[in-house]
């Protein structure tokens, strides 16, 4: 057979295959022969399409153990009546599309979820609306899947009896894109999950974290917005995480922060905006991290370094109107803070090379004192504090004397 003939043959096979699929799809509705989704799934052959018509289906424990597509174009509702897991996926190549899923029901011993994917690959979960959930989408040992365009509206009040909107456990190569996650415990939670991409999501008003990494490596998140969460994003015990162009904003409260880094190595933090968080970035035990082109705007503390942080590079960031730019709790420093723009910089640039001629010291004496004796924060904005800050900036005695920006920028980084 020639090459062209082979292609023609393949083409015909493909066409007929798709047609056969199209003609043998299964319809589920209140007046159809098949009235329940469970029955529809049972009757479907592998790779068949099950179409659900409009209506409310009071079902739970829908077990999908063969590759198929479960779709509604009329926004059918699946009501779990608080009985536990609603959809369980155990097979590869499953698509769930277009539903509203409500009433998962909570438990203190089992992680009930609206959709559970267990040891499956190549799934596509999209265009869903989840309400009154415990866990939203739960992936366990899943891989190569996509979760896109789902909206999760949780009603979490306390951490111990609420679940996460999207929960990944031992999963890898997952794409989580364009989702909106409200009021769960964590917006997205990754545990032992590598090589995932999390992009264009909005995570808001979650009571713990907007996004939470645990023991997960080589993941990337970009273009997400984390707003008004207990804390924006927590990255813990993970390596090689890339964080690009995210917005961390309004995570405001006495124990809130935009981004928490704990035991993180070799990460890239580029082009993010931190606005009006109590603490922009809280760093602990994190090494070899590059902070570049980030904007820190009107935070309480822009960066709070709690020790054991080595070889980090801060370059070309904008520090704008933060109460404290950088806070350190020791005199040791081997991180570099060069070529940043600091709104508190009062130096001059005589040779007009765009770099200030005298170095800027971002650690104020008062922030050092507060770290040592937290009670002293009560003297914030007192005239005396301004005076000692000024005298310390002239000749540092308590703050790390090598912690300074030797080439502060005169203009903001665009």
């Amino acid at each position: 057979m020639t090459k062209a003939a082979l292609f023609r043959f393949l083409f015909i096979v493909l066409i007929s295959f798709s047609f056969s699929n199209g003609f043998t799809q299964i319809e589920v509705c209140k007046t159809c022969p098949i009235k329940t989704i469970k029955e529809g799934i049972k009757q479907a052959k592998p790779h068949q399409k099950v179409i659900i018509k409009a209506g409310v289906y009071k079902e739970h424990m829908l077990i999908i153990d063969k590759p198929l597509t479960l779709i509604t174009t009329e926004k059918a509702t699946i009501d779990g009546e608080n009985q536990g897991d609603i959809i369980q996926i155990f097979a590869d190549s499953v698509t769930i599309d277009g539903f509203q899923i409500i009433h998962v029901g909570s438990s203190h011993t089992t992680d009930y979820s609206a959709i559970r994917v267990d040891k499956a690959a190549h799934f596509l979960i999209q265009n869903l609306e989840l309400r009154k959930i415990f866990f939203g989408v739960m992936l366990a040992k899943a891989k190569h899947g996509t979760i896109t365009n789902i909206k999760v509206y949780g009603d979490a009040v306390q951490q111990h009896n609420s679940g996460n909107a999207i929960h990944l456990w031992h999963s890898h190569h997952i794409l989580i894109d364009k989702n909106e996650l409200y009021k769960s415990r964590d917006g997205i939670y990754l545990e032992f999950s590598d090589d995932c991409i999390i992009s264009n999501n909005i995570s808001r008003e979650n009571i713990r974290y907007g996004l939470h990494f645990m023991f997960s490596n080589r993941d990337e998140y970009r273009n997400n917005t984390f707003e008004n969460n207990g804390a924006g994003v927590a990255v813990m015990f993970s390596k090689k995480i890339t964080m690009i162009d995210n917005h961390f904003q309004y995570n405001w409260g006495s124990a809130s922060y935009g981004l928490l880094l704990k035991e993180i190595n070799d990460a890239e933090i580029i082009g993010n905006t931190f606005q009006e968080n109590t603490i922009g970035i809280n760093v602990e035990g994190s090494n070899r991290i590059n902070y570049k082109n980030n904007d820190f705007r009107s935070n309480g503390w822009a960066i709070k370094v709690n020790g054991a942080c080595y070889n980090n590079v801060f370059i070309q960031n904008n520090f704008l109107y933060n109460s404290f730019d950088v806070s350190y709790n020791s005199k040791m420093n081997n991180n570099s803070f060069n070529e940043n723009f600091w709104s508190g910089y009062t130096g001059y640039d005589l040779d007009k090379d765009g770099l200030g001629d005298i170095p800027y010291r971002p650690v104020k004496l008062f922030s050092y004192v507060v770290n040592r004796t937290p009670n002293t924060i009560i003297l914030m904005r007192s005239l005396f504090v301004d005076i000692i800050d000024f005298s310390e900036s002239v000749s540092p005695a308590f703050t790390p004397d090598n912690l300074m920006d030797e080439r502060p920028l005169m203009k903001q980084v665009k």
Partner: protein
Amino acid sequence: MLKILKYSFFDLIRSRWSYVYLAFYLLLGFVLLFLNNDLSKAVITLMNVIIILVPLIGTIFGVMYYYSSKEFTELLLAQPIKRSSIFIGQYLGVALSLVMSLVIGLGLPFILYGLFESAAIWDFSLLLVTGAMLTLIFTALAFNIALYNENKIKGFSYAILLWLFLAVIYDGLFLLSLILFEEYPLDKFTLIATVFNPIDLSRILILLKLDISALLGYTGAIFNQFFGTSLGLISALGMLTLWVILPVWNIKSKAQKKDF
């Protein structure tokens, strides 16, 4: 007393300095709001001004007025008027004209920029109330100093020293004691030390009302627990009132005994 109050008040209102003071606040208010239209941010900046400048101006004006109207006071003393009404009247005249300059000077720009539709109205009124209280307190303290010192230079320097102590040195001692005794539970001590300085008390009262209170962390939470309740707010304002009443009472008793 009312007649003397009225006389002092209108005398001051006609004077150049009240206008300068009023114009200063008007300018400050307008410039702040022009540079940044956000009312609540302007309140924070104003707080910094109020807790430093209002006490300073109150003390200086008080001392200055007492010394400059000394001859007139002596003339009044020759008349059949109660001593307490002469001095209290003069004190109230100075203090109220300063309060009026403050309230009009700051209130006008904020009202023009839409204070009544803004959520910042409570913060702003608290700011004005504490500003007024600080004026009353520091003018009274200034009158006390002037009554005790015939020598003008001495009086002035004591007045400045008093301001310096309460605005700067007190906080320094406060900070130092917090660091020295950091191993002890300090929550009650911070609370008490704050209450005993009217400037610190005003600063904390305003800070707690603003977003920035989240930065105060654990200590802030304790303060919020205390001042956040209506009882706490009332006791704080009561403390400020006490700071007015005690010096005024002392003015009265000292004036009664003083030999002119």
